[in-house]
């Protein structure tokens, strides 16, 4: 089990490589978690279908490769399609759970995640798929080999994040979203159509997930049932960083990516998922101890 640890000891640059690879992935996690934090903060819905939306975006780019296009070209398509789908899901399901207790939204989105999984399973089958990007690698050192696709995905994730932040700060809708997050009732009094804001927020989150999914399908593999792990990662990051804490979300995303990559190497790939999920339990425990200290109801 610890032979790999010794390997890293012998070649410290290998450790650098592991962490670097993890950081590239972490950018994607941060992006997905930011979408979750948006929906959670604005409309108080905990979206357990987050990961399945990511996987759905991945299948859009996989479909593009089937039709002979480059998967990167699927990015704008995925953003637009997922925006529409998010709006539809909001109109059909989420609208009715916004004002209800949190467990309702959690369960409803869990049902939604089952639905997405099964539809994908019916269409594409349970096999693992990958959208071949054909980008090469470049080598910094014997041990540090960077896949170009990871580097590009880091850049794209960063560009998307900056675009979203500017949108939230400057645009009319972004301001309305922030106002609704602060106080939905006051926003309604001041003439903001909160229903539209909610719909837009959920749709925006869906397209963020779609864009992230396109990158995931190129870097890793996708499979209909892989969504839950992305949901859990997003929950870890948001729970650890707190709502409305963008720098925290980004840092935690990078940290989680690095931890996952390192843990997957040290303990073996079969424990990579377990390492992530145990991290969730640890973060929740930490929050629990914190709330014991403050002694207030955690809602």
């Amino acid at each position, binding site marked *: 089990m610890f032979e790999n640890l010794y390997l890293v000891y012998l070649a410290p640059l290998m450790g650098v490589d592991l962490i670097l690879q993890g950081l590239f992935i972490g950018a994607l996690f941060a992006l997905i978690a930011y979408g979750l934090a948006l929906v959670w903060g604005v409309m108080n819905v905990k979206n357990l279908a987050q990961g399945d939306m990511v996987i759905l975006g991945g299948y859009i780019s996989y479909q593009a490769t089937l039709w002979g296009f480059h998967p990167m070209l699927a990015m704008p398509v995925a953003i637009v399609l997922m925006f529409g789908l998010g709006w539809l899901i909001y109109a059909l399901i989420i609208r009715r759970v916004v004002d209800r207790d949190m467990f309702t939204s959690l*369960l409803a989105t869990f049902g939604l995640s089952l639905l997405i999984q099964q539809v994908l399973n019916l269409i594409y089958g349970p096999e693992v798929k990958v959208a071949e990007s054909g980008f090469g690698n470049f080598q910094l050192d014997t041990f540090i080999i960077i896949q170009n696709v990871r580097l590009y995905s880091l850049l794209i994730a960063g560009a998307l994040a900056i675009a979203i932040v500017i949108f939230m700060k400057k645009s009319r809708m972004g301001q309305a979203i922030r106002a609704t997050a602060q106080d939905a009732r006051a926003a309604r009094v001041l003439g903001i159509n909160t229903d539209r804001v909610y719909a837009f927020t959920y749709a925006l989150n869906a397209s963020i997930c779609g864009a992230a999914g396109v990158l995931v399908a190129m870097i890793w593999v996708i499979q209909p049932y892989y969504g839950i792990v992305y949901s859990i990662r997003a929950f870890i990051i948001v729970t650890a960083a707190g709502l409305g804490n963008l720098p925290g979300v980004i840092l935690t995303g990078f940290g989680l990516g690095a931890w996952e990559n390192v843990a997957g190497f040290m303990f073996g790939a079969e424990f990579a998922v377990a390492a992530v999920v145990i991290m969730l339990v640890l973060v929740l425990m930490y929050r629990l101890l914190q709330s014991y200290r403050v002694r207030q109801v955690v809602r």
Partner: protein
Amino acid sequence: MTSARKLDLKVYAGLILFGIITPILFPNYTSQVAVMWLMVLMAVTWDMTGGQMGYNSLGNVIFFGLGMYASAVVQISMFADVAKYTASFGAMYVEFTEVQYFTGLSLGIVVGGIVATLFALLIGPFMLGLRGPYFAIGTLGLAVAVAELIAGWGYVGAGSGISMPVYPGVAGESTFVWYILLGVTALLAHLFVRWLYSTQFGLAMNAIRDDEDKAEAMGIRTTRYKVLTWAASAFFLGMGGAIFGNMSGFIEPLEVAFPTATFGIFMVAMALLGGKGTLWGPVLGAILFHIVKEATWTYLLGWQWVALGAIIIINIVYFQQGILGWAQDKWPAAFGLTVDRGPEDQPTGDTRPEAAE
């Protein structure tokens, strides 16, 4: 009180009668109905924490799977070496005599229940400190984590699972054994919760659901009640898992033992469908859900899972109070409830508390 008691007795008698008649009249449906008893067991045990105590767990399958694995290890280890047995991937065939098999089975079922209980007692104080959605997500995460850890543990066969010992008796007879075991476990679990809800312990559980902080301020040791309730539900669920593992003949961590996406969500959906927080709601919900599930299985080739997801969403979004919950709202008197509509002559300002943010 007595009329409710009489009604309960009638329902019990009816269900037991149904349970005895079905395998005689329709022997082909025995295993389906056996799974239905398992579903009833799951819904009833989920409702102990979810409905009566307000702690909605999405990861109660942990206890199901732990019970299953514990009983498998016990049954095999009594007469063979577990590591060797699992490493052979079912190639090592151990002939169990009837006496050996049934001692192993009965011990395995009890140990399955006890291991699940111990695990609940161990993690309860931590997990049950989380509230609301954090508890739900935490338990879901824990279930996934336990499944992944067992999938990486070579001693119990890792991802390739364990083939359970083969039933020694006549072929076809075993189905009836599992049927009886699951039916009796479900009945025992329901009798237990019926007794439990009638005690002061049950009142404390409901107090925790209604307002935990107030309950604590009134001197109820909430953590103790929460952990004990979870442990009790884990005991029955662990036994159910042990029996189901033997019934399916082959156990494996992700799909059979810790199926968060199937049984894990079914038990919640069933309790909600029937009406959570009621005595008979989970039973009704489980029976209806199982019938709908089996019907869609037969006629919707391939699309059954999609239909099931849609049913769960519709149930939760549009009809959350469930059948008995709806009936209780409509005819409260029939359930022995008195509804305090408030003094009629007071000025009718909106005195209702704000909906929870």
